[in-house]
């Protein structure tokens, strides 16, 4: 077998090629992103420390506009993670890496039930739970509600080779949510993403969609620039990963899972918002 004959054999296989799928703009965008990520990672250690300090001070000062201000007690001792945390999120304690969506107020605050809600942005089963909050799960300052984002559905869907699939959609959505939390739009962004889940489960979200969700959540002006920079720099990917890793040691089987004062709510109640709201009230 000499070189010419091998060349001829190989030639026979590439004839009749289907039309190429190729997107130059997308390739250049990906290239720019890679370039930025490299530049960012060079500064990462310094930036992470600065961002953690900033996140903690914001948490204490409570400069948020829309979101419940985390109580001082929920901000633990200075953590030392190697990644940035969104405003109000802590790295230690029982609520490590969780996002507080509702705070208990008034004189019953100390005894208010703690509700943990485990979510994955790609799960259609979680959607009714998240979107029902306004109607039936509005705890009206009578419960401490923590959302715990995880990305395990990425492992399920990222084997998908279809052209409409977007890899790491859960992880990227969590990281983008972190940027929205900094913009004071934790609840609005959460609801917007769930309201716009793809028709086909597993298609996930493009980065463009994740930015559009921010605009739809009321993030505009300078804030949308900050949001986009935060997202493209992957500022909260570390947090998203760490938050997702909480799933396994927690013993939680999947999403949606709800715990009231540490006790797992049965599946039937979990997917029935009025019932769930009743269970939370009963715990008060």
């Amino acid at each position: 077998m000499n070189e010419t004959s091998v060349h001829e054999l190989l030639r026979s296989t590439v004839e009749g090629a289907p039309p190429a799928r190729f997107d130059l703009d997308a390739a250049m965008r990906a290239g720019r992103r890679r370039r930025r990520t490299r530049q960012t990672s060079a500064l990462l250690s310094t930036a992470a420390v600065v961002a953690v300090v900033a996140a903690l001070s914001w948490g204490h000062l409570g400069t948020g506009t829309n979101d419940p201000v985390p109580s001082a007690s929920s901000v633990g001792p200075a953590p030392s993670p190697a990644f940035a945390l969104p405003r109000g999120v802590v790295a230690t304690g029982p609520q490590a890496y969780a996002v507080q969506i509702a705070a208990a107020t008034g004189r019953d605050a100390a005894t208010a039930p703690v509700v943990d809600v485990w979510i994955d942005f790609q799960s259609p089963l979680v959607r009714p739970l998240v979107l029902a909050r306004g109607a039936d799960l509005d705890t009206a300052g009578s419960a401490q509600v923590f959302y715990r984002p995880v990305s395990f559905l990425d492992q399920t869907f990222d084997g998908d080779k279809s052209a409409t699939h977007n890899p790491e959609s859960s992880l990227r959505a969590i990281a983008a949510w972190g940027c929205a939390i900094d913009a004071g739009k934790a609840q609005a962004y959460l609801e917007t993403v769930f309201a716009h889940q793809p028709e086909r489960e597993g298609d996930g979200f493009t980065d463009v969609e994740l930015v559009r969700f921010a605009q739809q959540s009321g993030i505009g002006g300078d804030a949308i620039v900050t949001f986009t920079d935060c997202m493209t720099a992957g500022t909260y990917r570390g947090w998203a990963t760490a938050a997702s890793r909480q799933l396994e040691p927690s013993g939680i089987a999947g999403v949606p899972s709800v715990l009231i004062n540490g006790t797992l709510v049965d599946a039937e109640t979990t997917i029935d918002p009025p019932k769930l709201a009743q269970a939370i009230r009963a715990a008060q």
Partner: protein
Amino acid sequence: MDRGDDEDFKAWVVARREPLRRSAYLMCGDWFLADDLVQEAVGRVYAVWPRVSVRGAPDSYARRVVVNLLVDHRRRAWRREVPHDDLPDRADAAADDTSLRDDVLHALAAVPAKQRAVLVLRFWEDLSVEETASVMSCSTGNVKSQTSRGLANLRAALAAQGSTHLLDTVKELS
């Protein structure tokens, strides 16, 4: 990156995208995956364009990305059947051509990924042993041994599937 760089990059893409795609296909046996690999490789070349845009280097870099994704990371290469259904209708596509292509594709699928990549780089892209070693990030000795083992495996696969007419042609030529 200035506009001139972008123009150079786009010109390179126009000239080199299709050859890169064909090589990727020969290495993985799947046009869909080949398109993905090219998309990824072109993006990565753009990320380092100012550094690699000296003559010849972008090709080498792009090939390395494709090979690394396929061989090192063991992407799911050759996991599909030979894509009969994807072929466009062509008046000149004689039945003999189709069966020849199928025979060769099946035989190539039996060659381990790294050896197959070496065969494609050396005999399809006509790279020298040294150039191939640079793309594969291995020694020239390794390229030589991978080449001879790859050829032996290809021959054995052709024989095993009864494509003796190809073996005969090859023997006459060599």
